[in-house]
Structures are given as structure tokens and as C-alpha cells.
């Protein structure tokens, strides 16, 4: 799905160039001087409200970082720094670029800075120290561990202290259960804000599910839920579906009594006091979809959410026997840039995520 942020309105300047890592700040100063002299009537503003650090372990991570930097600075002006470590990279290399665009058709150029650092496995510590030197003082640091959420790598360890928030994605883990356990234990043992992109992908789903239970009638139904079904795509969506289920289990105060799992599904019996609730998570074959549907049933009504992947709309139905209600709403884009736009603006929900994660792990049998 496409990002909800437009591409830069008009790219004015780009300077992708290889530089000595120690000369990066100096080279940026030169770029700003050039940018100003190229258009004397216009003003250029270097915008930075956050340090956005990305840590990668392959060449593909460079592409993902650049895709995010095409969009993110327009919503979260930042200095973006990628440190990518992978076998086969002979030595430490750095390149910088500056992207400028016009805001609202005016003459003012808004500019962001991007630094890409690549190194071999032996360069991990050197890269960590280079990233620390490039952080703009007094600005928050958001660090993204691209791909497999490996929190024990040297690079991540080096940067944990300097980071205000660390973003991982349990949806990218080869072993969802191990990744969730690692996240939970890191959150409990260290004083860092560890955020999961899988959690932010659930924003639209969570708000729509919650909406069913607003108002007097909704509040009556919330204590009458007897079945919850979540349908998701294959593989990558495993963490998303588990987190959504974990959130509902935790928020509704359900206790796990029994679970049965196969490769394609999890079915659990839970209780709220003496009332049983059946929870089913089933995975289809689609690979590009995370959650594709949610159905919640009470004795009086079925609440249904269905994602139509082509239109990107979510069909929302309240199937009351005498007065069914149906409507469509827009879903949220789930590309990296869009998720970061949501995640960086969010200051809430950390404890809620922790509780949901614990419930998700219990559904996995951990």
C-alpha cells in the first residue's frame, strides 16, 4: 500500500557523494553554502527535530532506509543516519546526501540530511562510534533496527545508551516467540523505550475494534463477548495477529485456560470470571497482508472488520439482527515510512504494549 505522505513536492538538490567519515559535518556545511548561493533569492532551512538512526545488516537495508528518508523528513524533520554492517564490505565507507523541497509552493527550501555508513563485520564498534559523533545534540534519538530484531549485536549495544527510543519489528523475526521473549526481557531488564513496529501497524484495527464497544450498548456488549476470530496473512503477519489478540485478551481481562496450535492456526479457550471466550487466529496464504479480518461475536451481535486489500478499505459491519450497520473506512498504510510517521508521533501505549506482548506470549504457550 502506498504511503499516506506525498513524495517531496519538488526536489531541489541532492548531493549523494562519498566522503571521509571524519569530514561529514564539514561536507554538510559545504552543501548548505552551495545550496544558498545557487538560489540567492530563496532561503534554505536545514530542519532537524529528531536524530533518526537506522541499523542494518545487509545491502537491502540501505534501500529500506532511503525509502523512509524520502518521506519521513516531511513529517518528522530529521538527520537520518544509517549504519549498515555486513560481511563482504571491505572497509568503512560513508556517503552523504541532502534533500530539499519546497514547502507549500513557496520559495523556502526545506532540507534534510542523510548519512549512510557501511562497514564490514570488523567495523562494528567503529561504526557505533561514528554514529554517536553524528548525532545532533539536544535532539531525541530514535533508533531503528532494520530486519531481524537482534538486540544483542555490538552495534545495537553501543547505541542503546544514546537512544531515547529503539524500534524493532517482531513481524520480521524468523522466530516470533523468541523475538517476543527477547523484547519482553529487554524491556524488563533495561531502562529503554523499546517499541515494536508490529504494534503500530495495528493502530487502525485497534481503534476500529474499540469503537464497537463505545457507548452504552457497546459497553453492555463488551462483557458478553464469546468469540474472537482474527484472520491474517502468512509468516510476517504472525506477530501482528498475536499482538492484536494479546491486546484484546489483556484489555478484556481474559485468562487463558487452554490452547491448541497448528502451523496455520491457534485456538484458545479463555475465561472472564466464569464466562468462556473462544479465540481463533488463522493464517491464510497471502504474504503481503498482515491482518485481513476480525470477527467478534456476542449473543446479540457480530462485529466484523474486513480488509479489502485492493482498495485498502476496511469494511466495518455491526450485524444486529434487526438493524445491521455497514460502512467503509480508510485503512492505514503499512509501509516503513508510514509506520514511522505514526510511531514517532506516538508517546502513548508503552505499558499497554507490554501487557499485550505478555498475553501474546501466553497464547504461544510461553
Amino acid at each position, binding site marked *: 500500500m502506498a504511503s499516506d*505522505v506525498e513524495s517531496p513536492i519538488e526536489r531541489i538538490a541532492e548531493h549523494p557523494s562519498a566522503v571521509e567519515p571524519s569530514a561529514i559535518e564539514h561536507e554538510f556545511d559545504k552543501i548548505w553554502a552551495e545550496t544558498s548561493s545557487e538560489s540567492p533569492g530563496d532561503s534554505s*532551512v536545514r*530542519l532537524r*527535530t529528531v536524530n533518526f538512526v537506522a541499523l542494518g545488516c545487509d545491502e537491502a537495508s540501505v534501500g529500506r532506509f532511503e525509502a523512509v528518508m524520502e518521506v519521513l*523528513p*516531511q*513529517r*518528522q*524533520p530529521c538527520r537520518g543516519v544509517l549504519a549498515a554492517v555486513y560481511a563482504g564490505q571491505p572497509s568503512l565507507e560513508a556517503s552523504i546526501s541532502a534533500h530539499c523541497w519546497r*514547502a*507549500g509552493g513557496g520559495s523556502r527550501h*526545506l532540507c534534510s540530511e542523510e548519512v549512510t555508513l557501511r562497514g564490514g563485520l570488523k567495523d562494528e564498534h567503529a561504526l557505533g562510534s561514528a554514529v554517536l559523533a553524528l548525532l545532533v545534540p539536544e535532539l531525541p534519538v530514535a533508533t531503528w533496527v532494520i530486519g531481524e530484531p537482534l538486540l544483542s549485536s555490538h552495534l545495537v549495544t553501543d547505541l542503546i545508551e544514546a537512544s531515547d527510543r529503539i524500534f524493532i519489528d517482531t513481524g520480521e523475526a524468523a522466530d516470533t516467540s523468541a523475538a517476543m521473549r527477547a523484547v519482553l526481557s529487554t524491556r524488563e531488564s533495561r531502562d529503554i523505550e523499546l517499541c515494536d513496529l508490529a504494534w503500530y501497524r495495528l493502530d*487502525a484495527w*485497534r*481503534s*476500529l*475494534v*474499540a*469503537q*464497537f*464497544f*463505545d*457507548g*452504552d*450498548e*457497546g*459497553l*453492555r456488549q*463488551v*462483557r458478553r463477548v464469546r468469540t474472537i476470530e482474527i484472520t491474517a496473512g502468512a509468516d510476517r503477519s504472525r506477530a501482528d495477529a498475536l499482538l492484536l489478540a494479546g491486546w*484484546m485478551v489483556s*484489555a*478484556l*481481562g481474559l485468562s487463558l485456560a487452554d490452547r491448541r496450535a497448528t502451523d496455520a492456526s491457534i485456538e484458545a479457550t479463555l475465561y472472564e470470571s466464569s464466562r468462556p471466550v473462544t479465540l481463533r487466529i488463522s493464517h491464510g496464504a497471502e504474504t503481503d497482508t498482515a491482518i485481513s479480518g476480525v470477527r467478534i461475536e456476542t449473543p446479540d451481535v457480530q462485529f466484523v472488520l474486513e480488509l479489502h486489500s485492493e*482498495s485498502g*478499505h476496511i469494511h*466495518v459491519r*455491526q450485524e*444486529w439482527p434487526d*438493524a445491521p*450497520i*455497514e*460502512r*467503509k*473506512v*480508510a485503512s492505514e498504510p503499512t509501509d516503513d515510512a508510514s509506520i514511522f510517521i505514526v510511531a514517532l508521533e*506516538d508517546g*502513548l*501505549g508503552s*505499558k*499497554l504494549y507490554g501487557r499485550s506482548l505478555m498475553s501474546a506470549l501466553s497464547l504461544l504457550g510461553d
Partner: protein
Amino acid sequence: MTTMTTAPIENPLRAGMRLQRTPDACAVVVFGATGDLTARKLMPALYNLARERSLPGGFSIVGYARRDWSDEQFRAAMKEGVTKYSREPIDESLWESFARELHYVPGNFDDAEAYTRLADRLGKQDAAHGAGGNRLFYLATPPTAYAPIAEHLGAAGLARPADGWARLVVEKPFGRDLASARALDQELGTVFRERQIYRIDHYLGKETVQNIMVFRFSNGIFEPIWNRRYVDNVQVSVAETVGVEGRGGYYEESGALRDMVQNHLMQVLALVAMEPVASFQGDAVRDEKAKVFHAIRPIDDITRDTVRAQYRAGAIFGKDVPGYREEEGVAPDSNTDTYAAMKLEIENWRWSGVPFYLRVGKRLPKRATEVAITFNRAPLQLFRQMGGDNPTPNLLVLRIQPDEGISLRFGAKVPGTRSDVRPVNMDFRYGNSFGVDPPEAYERLLLDAMLGDSTLFTRWDGVEAAWELLTPVIDSWAGGDSPMQFYDAGSWGPEAAKHLIERDGREWHRM
């Protein structure tokens, strides 16, 4: 022992979410549904709220107006409006889903039978959608229709439903002076209670106006100096480049003072001057604003402390424009003000002795709305004694529109061997730090009204206090006590406005 099943007080699935609830299922009834405001502002706002998941299932809209339209004609007209004016492009499939809940009831505002049909229609929708009798009545009509509509809603049993809630949203102007505002309040009050009435001032829905409170109360460094000890004067300015834009007939009855000062400027002034609130719950903000209105000293010398003026022919952006009296629908000898300026004083502990200057005008050189707070000069002009310049005072400007942002002017040393001081600006622009377009004011206000949150709406005591202050000015101007001044279109207003502030040894902030 029997067990009673009671609903929990809060939705447990909302815990930790930014939006604590969506509105109850309800019907929004728009009176004046075929008018410009509905197509240009209300419908795009409601469509965007729906597409962004802020509206509940069971939500519907009923348009009510004189034209003999069908549901389909209403939907087509509204689609055209949304296509043209929505901040987000229209999505055909989402529109189709939204439009299914658009309905239309034709009727005159004083046709009792039409209100019965409206009640029937709403009853059917309640049955179909479980809206529970919740209704938001939006009066997008001329003010003369407010009282008859309210009366008929009452007679049709729609104002105080047995089940659910009913709220009435009214647009400005709320009256045209103190007497007419009181009469209107009384007429509405016979049908609706004060807590059911939502007087909309769309300025209060603007993000940058709301940011005045955020700026003051979430930053520790400004509030300690936000008082008479440090502030020399406050200016609230609204400059428009447009003239009356074909609405000469309306403007002739209104003028700058009624159209802008009584509502928008007074509300902005109150946000700048009010005391901090302990919370944003209930009426806390409106209570503090009311205290400000009541603390404004009545203008004792209207001829001295106010200026009214009218634009003559001139040029805007190099293009010739006619004078006000040559506009369509305007009398050739019109006495209506297109520019108003005044000096106010707030008699309370915080602001005693600090003048608040307000100015608003049409056909000024540029469009801008700003609050400018000029601070006292440093107590010792040290650098003047050393041969340097006399530094200009610090100035804090809250730019409300366009180019929304905040700038702070301070003195800095000019590089060199001398001690010259030059004023420089530290500039924050919304667009630079938040790339996203803020939601339209009407989106926020409509959502708040549906949620029953009246914080951003004006309360009767505030409206009444503003009219109490300004009605003597209106009467004095009407009696010819203050002569009408004139200014060329494209200028910054009449000379008399300059004299108003220069007499105090100050000058208008350059916008």
C-alpha cells in the same frame, strides 16, 4: 441473591488510546443544507471525519432546506462540494459508503408540517441504525432563522428527547448588539438549555489558536513573564486582502466590529490574557475566558480609544479594486466600518496598565492574523551608553494564519569592533516542524460537538460580556460621535489608527 449485569463505566479497549471514545451513534441535521457553508465546510469536514474512522457506526446526516430536492439530488450536490473543498481527495468507494447515510427533508424553516416529517425521518433512522435518539442540529442558516427553527424543533418534540441527547450548533453572529443577543438567547433558552447550545466560532477550532494555550501552559519559560511586569503591550491584528466578495448586503448589516471583533478577536484576546486552567475538563477554559471579559474596562472615551474606517478604491497586489461604497449591494453613502481599531485595558492583577490594541480590516496589503506581544525594554540601555544602538524591545509574535508559527525578536551583536546591536528573529514555522496539514477547524468542532465537549465553543456569559463591551461603541459610532475615517485599499488603514497607538508612544507591529 440475584446478580445484576451493569455496563462498565469505560470501554476497556480504549485504555491507552489517544481518542478515548468516538461519538455516540447520532444523526446530524443540517438546516440550510443547500447553502455554501454546508458544501464548502460542513460536508467536507464530516466526510474526512468518517474516512479517518472518527465517526461511529449508525451515523447519518439529514439535510433540511427549502429547495425541493430528493436524497439523490442532495447527495450529488454534497459530492460536488466534497470533491471541490475536501482537504483529502474524494475516494469514490468511501464516498459511496458515506453517501448512503445522507438524507434530505425539504421544508421551510417555519413549516410545522415539515418538522413532523423530519421527526418521522429521524425516527426511522433511529430504528434502522440504533442511533438512540441522539441528534446534533446544525443551523447553517441566516441568524433570523435561529429562533423559528428552535421553536419548531421544540414543538416537534425534537429538542428534549426522552432517549438520547439533542444539541444545537449556531453560527455567528449571535445577535447584532446586546439587546438582540439577549433576545436570541432567551428565545433559544425557552427550548434548549445552555448546555445543549454550541455557539461556534471557527477561530477556536484552528490549531494555531489552540496552540496559544499550549504555548503558554506547556512551556515553563513564558508564563512567568506573561504579565504587566514584563509586557509593554499586546496587539491582536486580523488583516484581510479581500473586500466583501459579493456579500455586500450581509456586510452592510454587520461591519468589521460585529463581524470580527465581537467574536474572533475577543476570543483570541481571552486566550492570550486568561489565567492558567487547572484542567481542560468541563467549563474550566470558558470560566477563565469569562473572567477576562468581565475584567475588561468599559471604553470610557470611545472617540479617543476607537477608530472606524472604510476603504476607498485602491490597489491590492498591483490590481485596482473598487472602494467599499462602490461594491455591489453597498449603499453609496454607507456608514459601515470595514476597519476597526481600539485600545482595551484589562483591570486585573496580571494585566493592569498593559494596553491591548485590536485592529481588523478588509482590503489591507496582506492577509495575516497575528498576536504580537511587546516586552519591556531592558532596564539599562547599556549598549547605547557604549556608543551602540538603542536595542528594540523583544517581541513575541504568534502567527495564526497564514505561515503559522511563532517568532521571537531579540538583539544580537553585529560582528565587528563596535557594540552595535541589531534585532534578529528566531523563527518557528509549523510547516517546518510538522509537515502535515492540520485538520480543518470544522472537523475538530463538529467532532467535539458530537462528543459533547463544549470547551472550544463560546458560552453565553462570554458572548454577553463581549456585547456589553462593544454595544456602546456600536451605538456611539451609529450616533456619529466618531467620524468615519477612510483609507486606500492596499494601505495599512487610516491615519487615525496610527494616531491611536502613537499617542501612547507605541506603534503597530509591522505584519
